């Protein structure tokens, strides 16, 4: 698949997306609601054959975002799936670990530092935070300063 064919292929999942943004020649972003994230991830893994790189969790103030980064190594294209989690009180999204083993650690990490729940994750134990870290303090949220995080560690 060359880049043009890849771009055409990505149109197939369009009905699950809010937007498709072509950021550069080989940088594509697919924006979707949290409930469609598994379908879009499955499409990239199974139908496109992209390689899972990592995911980024972001506290975007009006919502939480989980960005799944994929690489299509045939063209060096980075495809980002930006899943928007609108519920700020109980942020939750379906886990993609059952689809791709490599996502296990990063979902645990995002769960630790942003407090996003990954439903159906096979092993949602702490990865980053200490065992004695207080419940409910999520250090990467914008309302937690570096000083707060240090305090929580005491």
């Amino acid at each position, binding site marked *: 698949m060359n880049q043009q064919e890849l771009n055409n292929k990505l149109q197939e999942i369009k009905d699950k997306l809010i937007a498709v943004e072509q*950021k550069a020649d080989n*940088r594509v*972003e697919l924006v979707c609601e949290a409930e469609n994230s598994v379908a879009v991830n499955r499409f990239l893994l199974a139908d496109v054959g992209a390689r899972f790189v990592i995911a*980024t969790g*972001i506290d975007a103030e009006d919502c939480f975002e989980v960005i799944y*980064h994929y690489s299509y190594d045939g063209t060096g294209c980075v495809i*980002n799936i930006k899943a928007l989690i609108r519920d700020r009180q109980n942020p939750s999204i379906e886990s993609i670990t059952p689809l791709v083993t490599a996502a296990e650690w990063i979902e645990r990490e995002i769960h630790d530092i942003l407090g996003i729940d990954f439903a159906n994750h096979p092993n949602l134990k702490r990865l*980053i935070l200490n065992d004695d870290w207080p419940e409910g303090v999520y250090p990467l949220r914008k309302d937690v300063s570096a000083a707060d995080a240090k305090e929580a560690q005491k």
Partner: protein
Amino acid sequence: MSDNTRKSVLAVGPFHPLQEEMEFFQLTVDGETVTDIDVRISYNHRGIEKISESLQFDQIPYLVSRICGICSASHPLAYVQAVEEVAGITPPDRARFVRTIINELERIHSHLLWVGLAGHFIGYDTVFMWAWKYREPVLDLLEAITGNRNNYGNVRVGGCREDVPDELIPKIEKELDIIEKKTEMLTKAILDDPVLHARLKGVGILTRQDALDYAVVGPTARGSGVGIDVRRDDAYAAYGELDWDVITQTEGDVFSKAVVRLLETFESIKMVREAIRKLPGGPIAVEVKQIPPGEGVGRAEAPRGETFHYIRSDGGNRPVRHKVRAPSFVNVPSFKASCIGQNIADVTLTLAAVDPCYSCTERIAVVDSHNKLTHDYNSLLQLSRQKTQRIQNELGWAGLKLEDKEIG
């Protein structure tokens, strides 16, 4: 061993101070065979991503070069490429070549470091001492260019901090000739050694399918027949203008990973030579005024695999989010696939084959159910070396033949 009270646990870790993450491997063993593995990380979580949100864009290269002392060229490079993508900046030609030279010198020293340590683990201390001896001039070259042996911090948004001085070029070329000959000798000695074949082949196999499932990168992936390399796939710096090959092996065992690293060292030497020959003139950096709002990703092939940075800017002078993924974050979980079913004597080597970091093995300990220490690091090292010795005796092999003649 269904009786839980007699289940033995092999604890590897947790201290691991040289790497971006400390690691604790809890191996369940049945006799001498590993039956399960549990990994815990983050004993030395430094909150780099959070700290980064409080620093200005031009300060962050110094922060991220400290993520890992060994990969201190690739992290800043991936970071500045992400910022350059946000801001639409193209660094000058000379900067792209200088970045390539620094990153390939880093790969040469890192791969030689690995070869030496792998030799140490199996009782080939000659390999250890020699590989490290040949690595030393590479660090001297890096120091001559950047001012530091490690933590070079030589890139900045829009270019490089320090140039490769013209008067240093003859010295670099001379050192490369010497390193190439020495590495050739080392490679030939290792690849021709029947004991090493017997000791490393079929050990710690990561199958191609497992490599894909765990999405591993770098020599760990390329040793299992997954030919990915962002230097070629998503060419950055000057890699697209150089003539080089991606090295792959298909077996997925420790031997394959060793072969990949050794052969890659030659590719890196070739690349540095060509980059020096083609080094264009001109400035090494462009002026950067403001980083506009937006998102960008930067990737660089570190010695251990793809380093990935994601940056989001809101138009201020600090990023609102900076995500860092070091290659070991995806390589380490693959131990689950490569260690189970292995002999304890092979575990140190299998863990080392991924090239995470070695300090952890100083803390290796085997305890039984009453927490009584049965094996410590030294006795495990002993086990590994005894196995090598046993194979040597069976083969009637005198040992590695190394000739260290001075090369003019």
